[in-house]
Every structure is written in structure tokens, then in C-alpha cells.
């Protein structure tokens, strides 16, 4: 078991749900993103999803698209993700990399996995890879102690639910809505049932993301999921202060504290 599974089990034993925060590496700079991720851990994020910016992010809404575009424009490279992973694990939180497949494919899946583990990372979340895609990642993960998080959606059929939950380790990522990443006014219906279906299909742990914005959302999701995943609402803290990283990080800390209270049921 990796640090990711250990931490999720430990948090469950505390009687609460985990807060998982996403930020893309390289936004607003590699150094700035490392500072922001570290601050997020200090302010109460339990696990960090380190995003690897990609030129064609079909699963992402505008906030993360623009951040990724900015990160690439300033020259962010694949290897920068390991710098961020190391900083996050040094700060005391498990790190998982969220990446579309092509950057990993070009870097070399074996090399990527080895360097991720060497940096202290626990695993990967692959939004455009399903267990039956034949991408070759499963063979890489099978020979290493590395988690592969797959996604399930409201439209996932029973057959695919079983396949996906059996193939995932660490946790299963349940998408709370049919759509792309981004802040929404409310958490949609049927998400608790989706989490339940994933558990019945053998998911080790189920965390919920997409659309989570407020402490109230976090508390609602925390009542039935093992973890609450927040991305765009955190990225926006930095995006709202384009020329002032200190102010962006202060906003990020405040938002993280709000969400951390949410997963503990304090709204």
C-alpha cells in the first residue's frame, strides 16, 4: 500500500473525509506553484493532486484550461512535476499526479513511474485512460508500488463500474457531474448513489470531485465519500491575483481552511 491509501484509511479512522486539493505545476511559475501547494498542505489539504499541464485538456473547464495554457507558455516541463511532488511529500502530504496520457507516453511510462516514485509520489490519476484502453499503463503499474486512480461517472454501466473499480488502486475518482472541471452552484443529484455503486463494485476508497466549490459542498460530499476533491475553486484563488502571488496564496489558504472545515462537518 502507498502513502495515499494509508492516509485515506487514517483519515477515515478519524471519522471524517479527506480534503484533496488540485493545483497545476508551473502556475504561475514552477516555484510559485510549489509555494502554493506547500501552503495548501499547511492550511489543511490532506492530499495534493499535482496537475501536469497539457495542451489539449478535454476534461477541463476554463479555469484550469487557462492555468495550463499559462503554465506551458512559461516553459513548464514534464520533469517539473517531480519537483512539486517532492515538495508536497516533504510538507507531509501524499502526492498524486493528475495527467492526460500523452505527456506520460512521450516521457516514457516506465521512466515516469520510476521518477514519480523516487520523488516520493504515490500514484497517478489518468482522466483520459480507462482500464480497457490498452494504453500500456497497467503493465507499468503492475510491477511497481504505485497507485492508478481511474474515474467513474454517472453514466458508467454496471459492467464498466466493476472493471474500473477492480483496476483502480488508492481510490476511485467519482465524477460528481456530467461535464468538465469548474465551480458549480450545487452538487448534483445521484452522487451518493454513484459512490455506493463504486463501493459495491469493489472500490477500495471513493473520492468525489468536479464542481465542489464551498464548505457546504465539501460537507455534503464528505457525508458519503472518503475524500472531497477540489480543483478550480483553488486555482481561481491564484488566478484572481495574477500579479501578486502572496495575495493569491493568502486567498488559497483561506479557501483551503474553509474547505478543511467543511470536510469536518463545520460549515
Amino acid at each position: 500500500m502507498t502513502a495515499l491509501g494509508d492516509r485515506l484509511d487514517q483519515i477515515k479512522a478519524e471519522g471524517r473525509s479527506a480534503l484533496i486539493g488540485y493545483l497545476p505545476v508551473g502556475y504561475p511559475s514552477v516555484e510559485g506553484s510549489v509555494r502554493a501547494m506547500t501552503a495548501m498542505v499547511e492550511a489543511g489539504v490532506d492530499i495534493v493532486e499535482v496537475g501536469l499541464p497539457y495542451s489539449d485538456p478535454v476534461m477541463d473547464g476554463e479555469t484550469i484550461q487557462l492555468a495550463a495554457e499559462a503554465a506551458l507558455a512559461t516553459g513548464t516541463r514534464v520533469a517539473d512535476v517531480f519537483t512539486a511532488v517532492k515538495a508536497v511529500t516533504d510538507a507531509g502530504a501524499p502526492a498524486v499526479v493528475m495527467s492526460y496520457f500523452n505527456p506520460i507516453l512521450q516521457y516514457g511510462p516506465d521512466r515516469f513511474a520510476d521518477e514519480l516514485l523516487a520523488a516520493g509520489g504515490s500514484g497517478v490519476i489518468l482522466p483520459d485512460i480507462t482500464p480497457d484502453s490498452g494504453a500500456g499503463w497497467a503493465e507499468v503499474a503492475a510491477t511497481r508500488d504505485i497507485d492508478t486512480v481511474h474515474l467513474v461517472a454517472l453514466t458508467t454501466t454496471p459492467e464498466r463500474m466493476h472493471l474500473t473499480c477492480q483496476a483502480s488502486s488508492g481510490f476511485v475518482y467519482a465524477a460528481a457531474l456530467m461535464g468538465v472541471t469548474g465551480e458549480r452552484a450545487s452538487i448534483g443529484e445521484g452522487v451518493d448513489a454513484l459512490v455506493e455503486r463504486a463501493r459495491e463494485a469493489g472500490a477500495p476508497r471513493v473520492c468525489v470531485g468536479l464542481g465542489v466549490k464551498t464548505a457546504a459542498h465539501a460537507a455534503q460530499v464528505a457525508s458519503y465519500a472518503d475524500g472531497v476533491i477540489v480543483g478550480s475553486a483553488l486555482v481561481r484563488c491564484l488566478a484572481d491575483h495574477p500579479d501578486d502571488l502572496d495575495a493569491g496564496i493568502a486567498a488559497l489558504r483561506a479557501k483551503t481552511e474553509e474547505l478543511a472545515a467543511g470536510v469536518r462537518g463545520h460549515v
Partner: protein
Amino acid sequence: MTESLQSAPGPFFGQFGGRFLPEALMAALDELTDAYDKARVDPAFTEELERLAREYTGRPSIITEVPRFARHAGGARIFLKREDLNHTGSHKINNVLGQALLTKRLGKTRVIAETGAGQHGVATATAAALMDLDCVVYMGEEDTERQALNVARMRLLGAEVVPVTTGSRTLRDAINEAFRDWVANVESSNYIFGTAAGPHPFPAMVRDFQRVIGVEAREQMLALGGLPDAVLACVGGGSNAIGSFDAFLDDADVRLIGCEAAGDGVDTDKHAATLSLGSVGVLHGSRSYVLQNEDGQTIASHSISAGLDYPGIGPQHSWLKDIGRAEYWPISDAEAMDAFRLLCRTEGIMPAIESSHALAGAIKLGNELGPEATLLVTLSGRGDKDVEQAAQWFGMLPGEDA
């Protein structure tokens, strides 16, 4: 050749193809695959599609010999497969009618499409009007500017056109945005993909709907005396080319040549020559050749032709290249525009700039092979949409010196 290469079913073509997209779309892709597998063997579907081809599109499209043009191509005999004469002005309608009929079968009421030059968008807006479907077309902002006439055409047909302002603001970004729409509206909407690329079932399905081009042309050429020495077609994503090639795949003596956009030239960084200069990667849901940097980030492509301005390519073309069954030639903006003008002036036929890349390929091949050769060129679309751009290129707009 022992085994037929025709109508390869996917999802993989050799190492290429597959389905690399979020789980949220898998149910819709499975549903579409299933509906297509049933429809293709259902006479009610195939007969309706054939009726529309005949009575709406105007099929079969004719072939035209172009002797005055051919004098500039080494004197080879050159025949054009006239997809430009189809209703809506390009081959795109062949595919769209098939996918729109499938949309009705799925019980969905809204269609999404991406478009580069606007020809696929116009065809989709047309089919949506015919079959009473709501239609949203995503188009890169840069393309809405260089193909303003097609934007107006789509709007006149009742479609909503959404300019895409992210990324390189071209076809590739329009596809990203269409996928995003589809994930959010999958219950009501079907994605009518315009080219033989993307995730399974699109590469095989779009090829099947475009296959009629090669099937007709092969019969027409045989009736005129024999198979051509080569079939040439332009390739962006590759739908008119794969539709032209498929029926000839088992004719080992027929060379198949895809003409891709080399923009300013393959020795510059402004081109869309994916098969000449790309490397294997994953883009838009399938594994194929991609223009990308060493980190796997897609590189912006460039071509004077919006319809060929794409850094990816359909997976079956990648496979045909690797097994050596098809060749892919880079054709520059300048070569394509020279061929455009030549066809206008020698034959009175104004080709789309996309199709002009195939004409330029024919000029090269004809000069190489000489008067004994017979070449079949797919004229995938007509050039009405390109008049302003061509006039600009040649300095023919009012106030400019010709």
C-alpha cells in the same frame, strides 16, 4: 496480399486507433458503436442513406477528365472525382447524413460538430435542418475569420456557431470544445465527428460513410478502361482520402497518395505535415501520428487551408503509412495555390484550397510518370468559400494590383 485491407473494423489499426477519452463518454461511445453496428446491416438504414445520397446529395458524383490541366502535369491522363458537386459543396455531406440518421435512431435531439474550414459544419447544419435536430457547431476563432462566409451559411441554416477562443483557435481547439460539450450534454446530444479520426467508432464509421467515393470512382474508372495508376486525395484528418482509398486498398498496382499541408514548407515550423514530420502519440482519443514536442504537448499547425490545419491524423492513415500501402506527400501553401489557379484557368473548375493540395500532388506525379500514366484525383470540395482568401493571395481584391 492474402487478407483484404478494406473496411478494417477498428478499434485498432495496427498500433493506431483505440479509445483514449474520459470514462464519462464511454457509455455514449458504446451506445453509438452499438447503434452503428446494427444500422450498417439494417436494410432500412442503408436504403434510407442510399436514397438521401441519390435524391439529396446528388450521387453518384461524376468524374471529369481534365486534359488542359493535365498538360501541366507531364501529359498524364487526369480524372477528377467531383465531390465538389455534392449538395453543400464537399464530401462532408456523405458522412453527416449517415451520422444524423444514427442520431435519430438514438432518439437524440441535438447534434454537436466541430469544423475547420466550415464544410463539415455547413453539412451538419444542413442535415440538422433536414432532420429537425438542434445543431451547435464549434469553430476556432481564427477559422471563423478566414471562413466568414461559411459561418454565415451555418447560421442561415439555423445552427448556432460558437467561436473557440482557447489554444491555437483552430480545428484542434474546436474538437476539444466539442468533446467538452458532449460530456455535459451526452443524454440529449450526439457528436457528429467530421473526420476519420478521434476515438472508436469514428475512424471506421466515418470511413464507411465516405467509402462511397472510392467505390463509385473505381467502377467509373473501370468503365472507362481500367484502374488508375494512382489515387490522390488531400489529408487533414483524412476522411475524403480514406473514403477514396478504401475500395482500392486491395488493388496492389494502384498507388495511394495522401497530400498533406506543408504550409510554408517542411523545413519551417509552419506546417501541418503530421505524417511527414510527426511522431506517435495520443490526441483527441486515438493513438496516431501527432505534431508534438518532446513533452507530448501538441504543436500548433499551420496551413493556408483551414480544413487541413490539424496537428493530428486519422489512425488508419498512420497504419497505411507504416505498412507502406499509402504514401503521404507534403504540399506547400504556394504549390497548392498554384494548382488552384491552374485548375480555374485551364478547366473552369474552382477547387477548394484543401483539394488543391491533391491537385498539386497530381502535377508532381504526372511530371514524374509522364503521358502513359492515369491519375484519379478526389476533388473533395469546391472553392466558393475560398474566393476571398484566394483573391488576397493573388492580389486580386479591389485596390490591389493584380
